[in-house]
């Protein structure tokens, strides 16, 4: 009896998987890769937190100094003289731990100015106002000579030499404002940020 040929296919290629050794080695490589990445992430988080504090300090200083400059010229200095016992001719300092907010006018309405100094959140804001004597160098002319000039020649207006006016220097018309924001840092004891500006006694 003839055997009927049976046609069948038998795959003899074994499907190999990943061995345990390969798996362990791959996990070890990935773990070692993550060590410096985690270190970099930690450093970046610390740096971001530091920069955030700096940006907050800059914004707070900007806001506070802008508000202080909006007060009328001698308002803060006269408050220091009258209420806080500050010196007559400056410098006048504001801040410290228990500093009530300055208001203008005294009972401000909707558009009143409120300046907060001293402890503001985790920052300490101090303001120092000093009087800057003012003396200009000026070249004056003679109005009579100008009125008499018929040729419209400026050189005949009797200009003086450059002279310092007024003599002595004028005080009480120009103030320097220095605002300092301080906060505690983990690594450095106290960090500070300063802004300076000036304000003149101008006629509106």
């Amino acid at each position, binding site marked *: 009896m003839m055997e009927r040929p049976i046609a069948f296919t038998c795959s003899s*290629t074994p499907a190999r998987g990943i061995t345990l050794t390969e798996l362990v080695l791959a996990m070890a490589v990935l773990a070692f*890769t993550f060590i410096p990445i985690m270190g970099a992430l930690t450093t*970046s988080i610390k740096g971001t937190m530091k920069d955030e504090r700096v940006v907050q300090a800059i914004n707070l200083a900007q806001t506070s100094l802008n508000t202080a400059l909006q007060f009328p010229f001698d308002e803060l200095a006269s408050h220091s003289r009258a209420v806080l016992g500050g010196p007559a001719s400056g410098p006048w300092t504001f801040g410290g731990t228990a500093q009530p907010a300055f208001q203008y006018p005294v009972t401000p309405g909707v558009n009143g100015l409120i300046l907060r100094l001293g402890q503001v959140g985790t920052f300490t804001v101090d303001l120092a106002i000093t009087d800057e004597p003012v003396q200009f160098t000026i070249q004056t002319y003679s109005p009579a000579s100008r009125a008499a000039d018929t040729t419209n020649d400026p050189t005949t207006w009797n200009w003086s030499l450059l002279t310092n006016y007024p003599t002595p220097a004028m005080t009480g018309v120009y103030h320097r404002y220095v605002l300092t924001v301080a906060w505690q840092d983990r690594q450095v004891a*106290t960090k500070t940020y300063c802004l300076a500006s000036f304000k003149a006694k101008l006629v509106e």
Partner: protein
Amino acid sequence: MKNSHSSKNGHALILSLVFAAILLQLAISYTGMLKSAHPQNILIDERVKMDFITQGLIEKSILKFQLFPADFYAANDATNVASYGPLVTSVYLNAFVNDPALSLINFTGANSSISSVTINVSIASMALLTRYRWNQEAIRIQALASYMSKSHGNVQKEQVRLIKINRIANHP
């Protein structure tokens, strides 16, 4: 029957190495981004400082104008006498503007633990603007500030302020 053996030994290791390389590259680029963020904060700080200091100096120039308005007007009128040329007639206005009191050289009053820059500010020009049509006058004051930045070299900033003025005669 042929037995073909295909070995996939080591594929897991190669894949993990590729992923590790990609992750390391991401970490390096992220660290690079943070490095550029820090100097921007310093830049913002320096710009803010310059803004406030130039504002203060412009106030001083307005004070000078308010104290000596006649001399300013005369100096300005002298500049407008065209027949003698700008070199001759602008000397009076230049003397008014180039006043040592209207400049701050090597100003370090705003230094702190975060930044210490030396800022130079001066008044560049004070120009009288007149609009006869509307019977209005204004002064345009231009201040120039400069400082040496660690990251950007010499930085210059210009600030302009325009104020409306009214002439009031004080003679009887």
